[in-house]
């Protein structure tokens, strides 16, 4: 009994953190953007209220959709929850770690994306098809960059487990391999912006379907389905930010509370940074987005070369 509890507790605490804190992340970003526009903006807890409202509503389905459309939100949310178990959040070690779990993580993301694209195509609407094709194209490039980053991190940490790669080894490598990590951080930040549909890749607040990528794919979802999609997007952003913050933080004191405080403080800082980037840049033209992702890949490739050179 106690062994079951001791196994369940880390998993539950991980899920608690992800479920409770990811909408807050979105709220902070929205607040920062409002601050830059000179407005007061919605409260930081607004995403919670939005999700609660959506959970109360009924789903409306078009007559042309099949089971994929209904299954997609569930699959995506499930994928994000499983992914959350693989990623360490500061002091909270990942409950599930084994050698090679990085591949599981990347393929889980791909699974989620696959279902989202299929659901968008399932509706038969031309806007959603357009969004699906854009998402597929940009994900090719961003996954390339992401893989390069992970290869570099794997070489640095000499292991292919995600927890090892962003875990305790990083503080030691900042001293000797600083340039490679700088490049990885820069490249991963661009990947973060691309994967989570932030400016300069995609504008999450536009209402013009022709300019949307992610928003347009969830255009036809409603009620609980939409709540699941939004929640999954928030969790994805939180997980990516958690990875990035774990790479950046150079300090690992032994104290439990200090580590937690540093981690969550850094997450807050990253949210503010994303908000600043979103406020100060405009969304790029679509062929420039391709160039941005190629630059991200080139940076990751460069980081890989530097790591190989040093090794």
């Amino acid at each position, binding site marked *: 009994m106690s062994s079951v509890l001791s196994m369940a507790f880390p998993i539950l605490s991980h899920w608690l953190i992800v479920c409770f804190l990811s909408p807050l992340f979105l709220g902070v970003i929205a607040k920062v953007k409002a601050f830059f526009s000179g407005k007061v903006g919605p409260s930081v807890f607004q995403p919670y209220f939005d999700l609660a409202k959506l959970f109360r509503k009924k789903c409306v389905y078009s007559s042309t959709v099949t089971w994929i459309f209904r299954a997609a939100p569930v699959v995506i949310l499930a994928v994000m929850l499983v992914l959350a178990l693989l990623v360490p959040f500061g002091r909270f070690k990942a409950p599930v770690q084994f050698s090679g779990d990085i591949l599981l993580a990347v393929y889980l993301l791909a699974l989620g994306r696959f279902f989202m694209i299929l659901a968008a195509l399932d509706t038969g609407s031309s806007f959603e098809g357009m969004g699906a094709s854009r998402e597929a194209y940009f994900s090719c490039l961003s996954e390339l960059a992401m893989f390069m980053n992970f290869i570099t991190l794997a070489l640095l940490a000499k292991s292919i487990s995600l927890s090892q790669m962003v875990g305790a080894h990083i503080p030691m490598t900042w001293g000797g391999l600083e340039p490679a990590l700088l490049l990885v951080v820069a490249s991963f930040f661009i990947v973060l912006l691309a994967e989570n549909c932030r400016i300069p890749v995609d504008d999450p607040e536009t209402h013009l379907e022709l300019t949307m990528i992610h928003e347009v794919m969830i255009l036809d979802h409603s009620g609980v389905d939409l709540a699941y999609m939004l929640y999954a997007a928030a969790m994805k952003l939180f997980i990516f930010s958690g990875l990035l913050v774990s790479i950046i933080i150079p300090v690992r004191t032994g104290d439990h509370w200090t580590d937690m405080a540093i981690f969550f403080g850094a997450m807050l800082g990253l949210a503010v940074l994303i908000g600043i980037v979103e406020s100060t840049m405009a969304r790029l033209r679509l062929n420039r987005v391709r160039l941005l992702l190629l630059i991200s890949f080139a940076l990751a*490739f460069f980081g890989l*070369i530097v790591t190989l050179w040093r090794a």
Partner: protein
Amino acid sequence: MMSWIDVSCILAVFLALTILATHRIVGMIKIIALQSFLLSFVPLFLHAEAISGRDIMLSGGTMVLKAVLVPAILFWTIRHISMRSEIKPIIGLGTSILCGAVLIAVAFWISLSLRLPGKFESSLVLPCSLATMLLGFMIMVTRTRAITQVLGYLVIENGIFLFASSLYDAMPMLIEMGILLDIFVAVFIMAIVLNHINEEFERTRSPVHRPKWGESQ
């Protein structure tokens, strides 16, 4: 202080790669100014234990000449709208970025077999300077506008400067200042010739009389 040098080297290559990906000439000039500014600190980093007057003069001279005066000259050259328009590269920007990444790999591969003597054994100075030079060559070769060839030349010179700053003894200060001054005068003369070309361009308004670049025989 070695890590600062490595960071500068990485940033120099990153900025060269960004120039390869930019299509706006004004942006390219700003990035080159930033690159020269960053690289002018490298002599100070290299001799951080004992900064001599010579290092300060070299840093200061590089900063003034390459990060302030040369971009000013270039901005003056492109003051006409006809020179500021977007450039159409020969091989497309996305392919340029990928080729640039390959060239960086080539530069590192070349420097596997070359080892700098003395204290720079495992430093990134040699491969990054070679990479910057190769990227500068690529900028020169794949762009069709005259002003971008000057920019590619400047990137090559930045790469050479990065490499040269690690050689302390052989070049007395006067020669290094002479090299700096030469590069500055080179850009100055290039800007003047570009100005003449632009005047000629403006003079022959109709495209009938104007021969295409490379065919005026």
